[in-house]
């Protein structure tokens, strides 16, 4: 019982990371109509930008988080304006190819700048809190912060999407592109805001992953499959679904270690995704197929 609670916590931490990535993937898919394959490497780049702030300015990881988010948002907009904007007028699937190439460009840049060894934000072991009430359950402060901050970010995205003009415009474009365009929604501005949010949340996912484990140039790429699984599970194009999807995938992946080898964790995400694609491809929350 204790073990299961402990694993549930790990699952929620992983779920928070996946949700941060999946919201971005989902929004980009809803508004730009393509699966953004460089999103995993956005996460990695965000994590390494955070590392630079920690190393150069001596910030703690938690203060480097907003800096990494802003930095990655800028990078995302620059990539969009330099590259994606030029091929947006062709078929969306060309964007897909381009983003796949961008994933490799970013990864090799990261290797060139920061090297390809494992790195960590802070050395040393963090002492977990012991909760004797729950039978000696151990909770790391980092894990609590990751879950809490991602909940805060999700709430922020929710308020933005429901309360602001821009947020409403984004939902309109995601629901019905043609109708939104004829009613005079500024498409270019909506797209830029999409990249800002997507990039910033990807950076958050990367920094969380870096705090929880370690930094490596392929850390984001290996997380991309569960992120997509989470986005599909929640209904692609649905940011709220992405949160539910992220949690379900994260908790299932960690729970699976009770039964099968931990090496097959990504396979669990994949299996859930395949089952979903067969029986309910629109996702739990009816995404824009």
């Amino acid at each position: 019982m204790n073990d299961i609670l402990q694993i549930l916590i790990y699952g929620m931490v992983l779920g928070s990371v996946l949700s941060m990535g999946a919201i971005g993937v989902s929004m980009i898919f809803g508004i730009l109509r393509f699966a953004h394959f460089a999103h995993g490497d956005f996460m990695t780049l965000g994590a390494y930008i955070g590392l630079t702030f920690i190393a150069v300015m001596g910030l703690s990881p938690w203060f480097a988080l907003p800096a990494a988010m802003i930095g990655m948002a800028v990078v995302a907009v620059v990539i969009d304006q330099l590259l994606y904007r030029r091929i947006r007028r062709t078929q969306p699937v060309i964007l897909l190819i381009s983003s796949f190439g961008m994933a490799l460009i970013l990864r090799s840049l990261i290797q060139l700048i920061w090297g390809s060894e494992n790195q960590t934000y802070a050395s040393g072991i963090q002492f977990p809190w012991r909760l004797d009430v729950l039978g000696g359950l151990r909770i790391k402060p980092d894990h609590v912060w990751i879950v809490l901050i991602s909940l805060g970010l999700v709430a922020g995205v929710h308020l933005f999407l429901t309360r602001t003009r821009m947020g409403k415009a984004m939902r309109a474009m995601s629901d019905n592109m043609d109708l939104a365009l004829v009613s005079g929604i500024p498409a270019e501005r909506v797209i830029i805001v999409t990249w800002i949010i997507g990039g910033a949340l990807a950076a958050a996912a990367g920094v969380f992953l870096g705090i929880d484990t370690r930094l490596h140039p392929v850390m984001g790429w290996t997380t991309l499959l569960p992120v997509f699984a989470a986005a599909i599970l929640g209904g692609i194009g649905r940011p709220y679904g992405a949160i539910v999807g992220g949690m379900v995938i994260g908790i299932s992946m960690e729970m699976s270690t009770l039964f099968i080898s931990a090496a097959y964790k990504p396979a669990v995400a994949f299996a859930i995704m395949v089952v979903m694609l067969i029986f309910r491809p629109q996702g739990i929350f009816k995404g824009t197929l």
Partner: protein
Amino acid sequence: MELASLFAYLISFLTFAGIYAVLAMGLNTQWGFTGQFNIGIAGFFAVGAYTSAILTTPESPAYLGGLGMPFLVGLAGATLASALIGLVIGRITAKLRTDYLAIATIGIAEMIRLFIKNEDWLTNGVRGIAGIERPFAGTPLDSPFGYLLVVVAFVVLVYFLLERAYASPWGRVLRAIRENEPATAAAGKSIARFRLQAFVLGAAIMGLGGGLYAHFFGFLSPEAFMPLYGTFLVWVMLIAGGSGNNRGAILGAVVVWGVWTLTELATDLLPTEYATQAAALRVLLIGVLLQVILVTRPQGILPEKPPKLIARKK
């Protein structure tokens, strides 16, 4: 470099380019003809390579094997195994948008790599399978040059099969699906079935490429099937050469493999302590090359030329 080693280098270069040409034509069937997005090429490639290796190698205590079958049986097995995986993935995604196929294929490629890495009894895990022999031992074909001829023969065979398929009514339906799906459905064609057929055919050809690779390289390990080499280079080859055009696929394979090899020669000049940076730099260059092609010449070097419709007699 003296002449003999230059010649040996050229043979090895062309053999690799030929194997990549087979993979690029497989992708052309899926993407070029039908518009299906597969970024799990590395997975199909690996299934083909391992199937052929397991079927043909002599017995070993470390992994499943010892079947000692002839080369052509190994290749047939490779083609079939890869086609089966393609059938499963294709059936799941044939009715969905191509983005879902893309995500599913990247998933299957990762699963295959995980499986190969962790199931030692079948594949010897990370230690890999060594000693895969070149085919036709004892005949004049048992030499690097002989194997190049074998690979070229398969390139030509696949090329003629695909050219025939492309010009046939079947190929016309595939192009129609790519260009205008609702209209094709309205004309009474089963979109899902044609897509599935094209996907399985492409997967089978990729499996064949994998088999050819196994017997050329002689050693297989999971690291050889990272998405970079298996998938990304093939995509750049097809896009650069001209998607939809089989000759473009072959040309793209030779040109891009040439660029890739040249960058290796260039980065070899750097001191060895920069080896990992140099590898990253090569990937960066290829990635930028892809973006430049997509922005400036998306139709590739040899654009697609659909066959002329035969005019009906009045």
